[in-house]
C-alpha cells in the first residue's frame, strides 16, 4: 500500500463548512431588512436599468443607458415639446433668430446655474462646441460641421455663423448637451498637450459631474447602483410647460441594474422598482396588466423595421423586382405573428410616432389585398418587366401554386441569394421576419436563404464591404427631424461606411434632401420630407415592414404624473414632473 499525503480537499470535517454556510444564510435572511424604505426616510424613485452606464463622460457616452442618465444631468439649449415633439427653448430664452441670409443664428440664454451654483453663460455653450470641433469628437462632430464660427456676444448671447442655411442645425447642434467650461477646461487643456488629445478627453472619468439638469449625481457604486439627487439650482423649477408644472418633486432617484427583462419585470411586480426604464416584452404584458399597483403604457416605438436590397446587384437593382417583393410580403401577418399584435404595418420610412413628419399617404403595397391577389399582382409586375419562371406561381387558370426557378429578363436563371438577419438571441423579431420572408419568396420562385449572422458580421457585409443581397434591419430612436433620410439615401452616403447601405442613387432625391436641409421653415421642410418619403416608397430601396410598439410598466401606486409622450413615458419630462402619490 502506498502512503499518500492527504490532499486538503479530503478534509475530514466538511460538516463544519456546511454548518458555517447555513448559519450565514440564516443570519443573512433574518437580519437583512426586508423593507424597501430608503435611507434617511427620503422619497426615492427607484428605476430599473437593463445595463449599467459605462461612463458619465458625455464625450464618450454612446449607449442608450448612459444617455438616459446623462439626460438628467446635462441639458441642451432646445428640447422637444412632450406633446408636439417640436423644439422649444430650454436653456435658450426664445427661438433662434436668423439673419436675413439665414447663415447667422443668434441665441439668447436663460438665467441658469450649474449644480455647483456657478452661473451658466454663453462661454459654456461656445466651449462645448469648440471642444467638439477642435478635438473632432466622433458622434458629435457631424452635428457641428456646418458651424464656421462661434461668437460670444455677451454672457447671455451667442452667435453661430453657418457655412450655409442649415435647417437641422437647430435639431442637431442646438439640442446637444452643454458642459460647464469651468469644470472641463483643465481636462481639455491637458488633453491638448498630449499627442492623443481625443483619447485623453474621452478617458476622463467624470466622477461627480457638474450639470444643469433636474438631478445631479450623488453616489455611484459601480456594479451596484447609482443615486441621483434633486439639483436645487435647476433653472426650470416652477415653470410650466404644456400645462405641467416643472419640479422635480422627487428628492432622489435610485437606478438599479437588472441583467434581464424577466428579472426587472419581477422587480416591478414585487415593488423593488417603480419604473423599468426600458421596453417590456409583450409576453409579460398580460400578467402585468392585472397586477395591483401597476400600470402599463403602450406606444408606437420611434423605430422602423425594413427589408433592404443591394441595388448594386441584379435583380435587386430592378424596381419591378422590388415592387413585386413588396406585394408578396404580408405586413399584417408579420405584425400579428412576429410582434404578437404589438405594432403596426409601416409604409414609409418615418415611424408613425413622429406624427409631424410621418406621411400617411405613401403607396401601400398589398394593403387590403388577399394573398392570391397579391401574388397575381407581383406576377403581373414581373412578367411585364420580362421575367419568367420554370414553374410559374400561377397556374393557367390563375390559381396560386408554389413557383420555381425565376428567370431574369435576359433569360438567365436568378442565382441563389442571401437574406441577412441577426440571430434570434440578438433580435428575435428580425430573425423571425427573415425566415418568414424567405418562405414567401421561395414560394414565389425566388431562390433565397435567410442567414442569421452576428450583428458585427452583418454590419461588416452591409455597411463596410457592401457585399450582400438583402437584409432585414431596424432603426430605433430615430431623430424627430427626419434628417436621417438624407443620410440613408443620399448618393453621397453611398460609400464605404456610409449609411446609404442599399446604394440608392437618385439625383432628384439628392436635390430634395439638400433642399430639406436648407429650408428653415418647418411647414415647407415637412412638405419636402413628404416628397422624399413618397419617392423612396416608389423606388423601394427599403421595403418598410413594421413599427413595433413599446410597452412600459410603472408602479402608479407610488408615483403619479408619468408623461406619456408619443414615444413613451421613459423621457426626461417624466422625471421633472413625477410626484410621490403620498
Amino acid at each position: 500500500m502506498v502512503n499518500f499525503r492527504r490532499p486538503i480537499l479530503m478534509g475530514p470535517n466538511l460538516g463544519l463548512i456546511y454548518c458555517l454556510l447555513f448559519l450565514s444564510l440564516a443570519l443573512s435572511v433574518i437580519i437583512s431588512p426586508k423593507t424597501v424604505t430608503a435611507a434617511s426616510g427620503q422619497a426615492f424613485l427607484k428605476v430599473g436599468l437593463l445595463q449599467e452606464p459605462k461612463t458619465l463622460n458625455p464625450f464618450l457616452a454612446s449607449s442608450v443607458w448612459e444617455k438616459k442618465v446623462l439626460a438628467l444631468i446635462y441639458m441642451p439649449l432646445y428640447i422637444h415639446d412632450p406633446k408636439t415633439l417640436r423644439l422649444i427653448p430650454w436653456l435658450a430664452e426664445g427661438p433662434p433668430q436668423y439673419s436675413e441670409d439665414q447663415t447667422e443664428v443668434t441665441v439668447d440664454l436663460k438665467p441658469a446655474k450649474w449644480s455647483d451654483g456657478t452661473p451658466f453663460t454663453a462661454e459654456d455653450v461656445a466651449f462645448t462646441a469648440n471642444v467638439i470641433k477642435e478635438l473632432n469628437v466622433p458622434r458629435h462632430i457631424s452635428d457641428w460641421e456646418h458651424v464656421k464660427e462661434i461668437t460670444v456676444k455677451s454672457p447671455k448671447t451667442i452667435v453661430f455663423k453657418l457655412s450655409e442655411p442649415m435647417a437641422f442645425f437647430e435639431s442637431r447642434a442646438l439640442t446637444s448637451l452643454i458642459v460647464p467650461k469651468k469644470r472641463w477646461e483643465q481636462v481639455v487643456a491637458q488633453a491638448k498637450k498630449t499627442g492623443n488629445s481625443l483619447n485623453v478627453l474621452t478617458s476622463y472619468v467624470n466622477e461627480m459631474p457638474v450639470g444643469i439638469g433636474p438631478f445631479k449625481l450623488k453616489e455611484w457604486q459601480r456594479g451596484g447602483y447609482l443615486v441621483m439627487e434633486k439639483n436645487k439650482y435647476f433653472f426650470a423649477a416652477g415653470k410650466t410647460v404644456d400645462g405641467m408644472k416643472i419640479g422635480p418633486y422627487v428628492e432622489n432617484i435610485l437606478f438599479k441594474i437588472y441583467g434581464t427583462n424577466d428579472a426587472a419585470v419581477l422587480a416591478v411586480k414585487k415593488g423593488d422598482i417603480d419604473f423599468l426604464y426600458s421596453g417590456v416584452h409583450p409576453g409579460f404584458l398580460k400578467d402585468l396588466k392585472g397586477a395591483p399597483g401597476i400600470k402599463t403604457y403602450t406606444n408606437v416605438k420611434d423605430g422602423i423595421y425594413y427589408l433592404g436590397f443591394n441595388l448594386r446587384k441584379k435583380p435587386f437593382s430592378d424596381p419591378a423586382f422590388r415592387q413585386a417583393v413588396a406585394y408578396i410580403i404580408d405586413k399584417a401577418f408579420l405584425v400579428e405573428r412576429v410582434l404578437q399584435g404589438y405594432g403596426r404595418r409601416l409604409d414609409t420610412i418615418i415611424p408613425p410616432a413622429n406624427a409631424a413628419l410621418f406621411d400617411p399617404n405613401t403607396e401601400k403595397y398589398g394593403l387590403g389585398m388577399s394573398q392570391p391577389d397579391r401574388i397575381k399582382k407581383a406576377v403581373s409586375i414581373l412578367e411585364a418587366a420580362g421575367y419568367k419562371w420554370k414553374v410559374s406561381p400561377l397556374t393557367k387558370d390563375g390559381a396560386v401554386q408554389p413557383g420555381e426557378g425565376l428567370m431574369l429578363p435576359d433569360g438567365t436563371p436568378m442565382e441563389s441569394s442571401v437574406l441577412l438577419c441577426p440571430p434570434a438571441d440578438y433580435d428575435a423579431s428580425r430573425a423571425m421576419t427573415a425566415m418568414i420572408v424567405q418562405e414567401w419568396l421561395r414560394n414565389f420562385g425566388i431562390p433565397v436563404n435567410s442567414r442569421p449572422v452576428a450583428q458585427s458580421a452583418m454590419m461588416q457585409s452591409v455597411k463596410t464591404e457592401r457585399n450582400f443581397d438583402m437584409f432585414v434591419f431596424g432603426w430605433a430612436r430615430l431623430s424627430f427631424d427626419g434628417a436621417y433620410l438624407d443620410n440613408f439615401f443620399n448618393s453621397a452616403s453611398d460609400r464605404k461606411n456610409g449609411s446609404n447601405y442599399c446604394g440608392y442613387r437618385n439625383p432628384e432625391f439628392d436635390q430634395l434632401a439638400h433642399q430639406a436641409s436648407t429650408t428653415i421653415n418647418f411647414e415647407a421642410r415637412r412638405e419636402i420630407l413628404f416628397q422624399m418619403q413618397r419617392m423612396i416608397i416608389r423606388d423601394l430601396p427599403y421595403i418598410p415592414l413594421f413599427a413595433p410598439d413599446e410597452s412600459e410598466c410603472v408602479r402608479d401606486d407610488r408615483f403619479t404624473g408619468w408623461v406619456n409622450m408619443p414615444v413613451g413615458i421613459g423621457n426626461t419630462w417624466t422625471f421633472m414632473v413625477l410626484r410621490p402619490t403620498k
Partner: protein
Amino acid sequence: MELRRYLINRTIQIIITFFFIMTLLFILFRIAPGDPSSMIIDPHMTPEDVALIRQQFGLDQPIYVQYLVYIKNFFKGDFGISFYYGEPVLNVIKSVLPNTLLLFTSATILSALAGISWGKFAAWKKGSVSDVALTLTGLIAHTLFLPWFALIMIWIFSYKLELFPLNGMVSPEIWLDPECGFWAKSLDVLHHLFLPLLVLFIIHFGGFLLVMRSSMLEVVKEDFILTARAKGLTDREIRNHHAAPNAALPVITNVGLSLAFSINGGALTETVFSWPGLGRELVNAVSQFDYPLAQMSFLIISALVLASNLVVDVLYAYLDPRIRY
C-alpha cells in the same frame, strides 16, 4: 534537483505558450468581422465618424504596427484603455474581479468539496439506495440548463418566498442607510450571494461527484485495499485514508482547472443574477470589439490556467510519491 529542473523547463514552456497565446488573441480579435465602429449603429453616423473612431483607437495603423505597439505596451505594463469605458483596462478588471472570485471561486470550492465527499461515499456504497440517489441527483444537476434553472430559483426563492433579493450584489437601500455599518453590509452581500452560489453549487457538484465516484470504483478494486482489509482496518479508515487519497488524483486536475477557469465567471449566471462580474464584462468586451479589455481578460485567464497546470503537476508529485520528474 530533478523537480527543480522540471520547474525551470515548465516555466520556460509556460512563457513561450503565454507569448503564443498573446499573439493568437491579437490575431483572433482582428480577423473577426467588424471593429468597434461597426457596433455603433447610429443613423447619423458618417464615414468620417467611423474614420475618427478608428483613428482614435489606433485601428487605422497597419496590423503589424498595432501588434508591435500591443507587445511593447504589454511589456511596459501598459495594458491599454478600454474602448468602451475609456478607463485603463486594469481598473475595469480590478473593479469586477473580486465579485467573480467571491461567487465563482467559492462555488467551485464548495461544489468540489461536496462532490468529492459525496462521490467517495457513493462509490463506497455502490449499488445502494444512497449511491443511486446521489449519482442520479449529480447527473440531473449536472445537465440542468443554467439560465432556466436560475430563473426558476429566483422565481421561487426570491419572488414567491421572498427569502432572497431578486438580483444584484447589494441592496442600495442598506448601503445608502448611514445607520447600516460593516456587518449589515457584509450580511447584505452574503444575502445576495446565497442564491447564485446555491445555483452554481447545484450545477457543478455533480461533475466532481461523478469523477470522484468512478475514480474510487477503480481504486477499490486494487490489492492494497484488500491488504488494508486484511490488516483489520475499519471501513471508514480504508475509505478515507487509503482509497480516497488515491482516487483524488484525477479530481485534483479537475479542481485545479475549474478554479483557474472560475475567474472568468459565467456570463449567463452573471446576467440572470445581475452579478457584476468579469464574465459579463468579457462577453461585452468581445461583442463590442473592446480589444484591450477582451485581450487582457483572456490573458489573465490564460496565465491562471497555465499556472494552475503547473501547480497541479507539482501537487501530483507531493500527493503521490510514485510520481517523479
